[in-house]
């Protein structure tokens, strides 16, 4: 093996291998037929970022539609109500099913998790590739449905509108069905990997917390997604054959659809947030140079969050016609599910306390997460209170709530993880200066866009409404301007990250002084991840014996 460059690792010099997973084999066929989890992770990364761009464009269109109540730009009305309905439906469906559910597990975790365990690959590499292809097929079908007839039901596909409206509901729901299986196979793979492919000597409580988070996510993916699959099949059959399950005119129960739908979709939001929290559990100890506080508490809270997430879905049906008894039960259980999240928040803060903190971009994102997720999570508790929910449900307050947790939580964590592992995946350092500027833009833009929506919602502005009273126009406009700031921050991020591939300085093995096993490989890693099989030697987050100088 020729070594021509030194890696300049923080932990000592090691020659950088010339051949790594990126250049070992070349050509598009070698990528499309790969079973290397790192390449699959990179392909997924490109795919979900493309989906994020598409969903983001629809988001900008939604906000632009609402700039003023006349829906005009430069004096001319450019959007109709039908177009608007499609904008928010496609924004939601793309963001939920094509981006946020697969993003962290299939891209970042695919790359990093086997390495954190000291493994050569995931348990079922071919199923990993199949999962990616299923995503692609689902994406093509979803985009096809936009082209053919579009969907205007909202991403929640509530009946009876979804069973009776024109539009490509069938194609879109079948796209989601396929994407569901992509998700199931990802989760299946990670669960098996964590059970059986840990390095010799690594017990369950020696694993990095990122692995715990992804494992808990996999549990939800396995148990919840099949119910979505059958729900969508029933929806399609109702639409085509009118079996009379969801449509009350032919003897069905529309609330039953909501039960079926939310039995998946509530745990789904924990599929979204658990990986984000898992990333934060990695970033904070590394950039505080301090061992994580409450390792077991965080590990247990990940699993309990996964399990508890299954018994609260009825809080989406509080005003839908659910019985009083069920309402009360679900309300109480929803209060319960906030506790594990709170445990994590306090543990992360305590980890930072008296730590040796530095403020690189990943840490800036992690701190943004703490702030934004706290707001998002807290406002979720408002909704579990029945009396408050009646007034706030289906207003912009809930739109703000879920954007704070999904975007302010998961997307922020995703960006943090992307920057954290960028040197490992690409072998390049991004520009820290531009990283900090973009993070600031994202943070400010995000709060402008969605903080204002809390106010609007509290004043009664309903969600998904095309027309609104003039009194809301200033806040709507402010939110739209915020979306431009947010969009520019994200756009800037894409640019400097892509630019780093060409012009960024070469990354050392361990630029941040991380203690988990993936940092023991080269940046980028060799095809088999490690040149020698790692054996578990020290606990993760063990900073006691490190004298780390900063890169």
């Amino acid at each position, binding site marked *: 093996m020729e070594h021509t460059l030194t890696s300049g690792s923080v932990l000592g010099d090691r020659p950088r291998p010339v051949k790594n997973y990126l250049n070992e084999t070349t050509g598009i066929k070698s990528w499309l037929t790969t079973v290397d989890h790192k390449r699959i992770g990179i392909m997924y990364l490109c795919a979900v970022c493309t989906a994020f761009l598409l969903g983001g464009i629809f988001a900008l269109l939604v906000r632009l539609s609402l700039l003023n109540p006349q829906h005009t730009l430069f004096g001319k009305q450019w959007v109709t109500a039908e177009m608007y309905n499609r904008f928010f439906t496609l924004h939601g469906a793309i963001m939920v099913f094509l981006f946020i559910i697969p993003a962290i597990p299939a891209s970042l975790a695919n790359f990093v998790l086997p390495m954190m365990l000291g493994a050569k690959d*995931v348990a079922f590499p071919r199923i990993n590739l199949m999962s990616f292809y299923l995503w692609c097929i689902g994406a093509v079908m979803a985009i096809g449905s936009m082209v053919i007839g579009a969907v205007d039901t909202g991403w929640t596909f509530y009946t009876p509108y979804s069973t009776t409206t024109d539009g490509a509901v069938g194609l879109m729901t079948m796209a989601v069905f396929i994407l569901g299986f992509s998700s199931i196979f990802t989760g299946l793979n990670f*669960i098996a990997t964590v059970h059986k492919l840990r390095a010799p*000597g690594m017990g369950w409580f020696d694993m990095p917390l990122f692995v715990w988070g992804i494992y808990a996510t996999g549990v939800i993916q396995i148990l919840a997604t099949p119910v979505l699959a*059958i729900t969508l099949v029933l929806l399609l059959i109702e639409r085509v054959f009118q079996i009379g399950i969801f449509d009350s005119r032919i*003897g069905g129960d529309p609330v039953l659809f909501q039960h079926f739908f939310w039995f998946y979709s509530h745990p789904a939001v924990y599929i979204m947030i658990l990986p984000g929290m898992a990333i934060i559990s990695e970033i904070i100890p590394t950039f505080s140079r301090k061992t994580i506080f409450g390792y077991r508490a965080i590990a247990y809270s990940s699993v309990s969050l996964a399990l508890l997430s299954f018994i609260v879905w009825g809080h989406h049906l509080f005003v839908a016609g659910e019985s009083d008894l069920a309402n009360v039960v679900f309300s109480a259980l929803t209060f319960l599910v906030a506790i594990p999240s709170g445990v994590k928040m306090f543990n992360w803060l305590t980890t930072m306390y008296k730590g040796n903190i530095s403020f690189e971009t990943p840490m800036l994102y992690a701190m943004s997460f703490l702030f934004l997720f706290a707001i998002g999570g807290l406002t979720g508790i408002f909704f579990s209170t029945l009396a408050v929910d009646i007034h706030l449900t289906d207003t912009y307050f809930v739109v703000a709530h879920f954007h704070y947790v999904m975007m302010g939580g998961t997307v922020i964590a995703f960006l943090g993880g992307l920057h954290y592992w960028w040197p490992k995946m690409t072998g390049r350092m991004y520009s820290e200066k531009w990283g900090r500027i973009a993070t600031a833009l994202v943070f400010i833009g995000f709060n402008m866009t969605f903080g204002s929506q809390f106010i609007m919602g509290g004043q009664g502005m309903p969600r998904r409404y095309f027309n609104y009273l003039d009194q809301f126009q200033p806040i709507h406009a402010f939110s739209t301007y915020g979306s431009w700031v947010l969009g520019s921050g994200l756009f800037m991020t894409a640019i400097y990250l892509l630019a780093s591939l060409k012009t960024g300085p070469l990354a050392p093995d361990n630029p941040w002084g991380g203690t988990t096993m993936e940092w023991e490989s080269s940046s980028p890693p060799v095809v088999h991840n490690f040149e020698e099989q790692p*054996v578990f030697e020290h606990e993760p987050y063990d900073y006691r014996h490190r004298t780390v100088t900063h890169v």
Partner: protein
Amino acid sequence: MSTTTEVLHQDPHGHGGEHDPHQQHHFTTMEQQFDTSKIGMWLFLATEVLTFGGLFAGFGLMQSKYPMEFIEAHEKLKRWAGATNTVVLLVSSFTAVMAVLMARTNQAKKCAMYLWLTVGCAGIFMCIKAYEYTHDFEEGLYPAKYYSHVGDLIPGSHGYATFFSFYFMMTGLHGLHVLIGMGLMSWLAIRASRGEFSDKYYTPVDLIALFWHLVDLIWIYLFPLYYLIT
């Protein structure tokens, strides 16, 4: 907690040829690979439980909505056909687990025989179901909006069509799984007769037999709910 790093499997194909040809490079032993495959199959079976379970839930909730219609509709299904199918599937589960036993005790011919017997039982199941469906269609017992049976006690109620919608959906989905199982078992039987399975490697037989047992399990619940509740 050793402080040395082991050099393991640096060159997967060059250290003495000890590898079973079926062993994949990211596993250290065949046993690890086998156990992992089993976990994977059980995870998949859990998803099947929840998929069918959703249909069972829908059926149960619709039954609580239309109790009289569902009871009446039950009568139109042939109990003997359902019972025979139950027996057939139980026997097929037996032949499937025997096939696994034969595979791991190096009795390739018997393994293939039991696999073909399983396929045969599945075929009988499908024939009986085909007969049932044909008979149901003759009486106008179609699903959903095609329901055209006359002589119901509560005419105009949606409950009958809903019952048969669920009946055809669930037995249809189950039948689809039976067909898939038949295909997989046939493929395995051909491989078994070529001597591809032994006590060193019988994973595919074990895993597909697990799938088959689940198909049987689903029918074990389908049968009483549709045929026996009066």
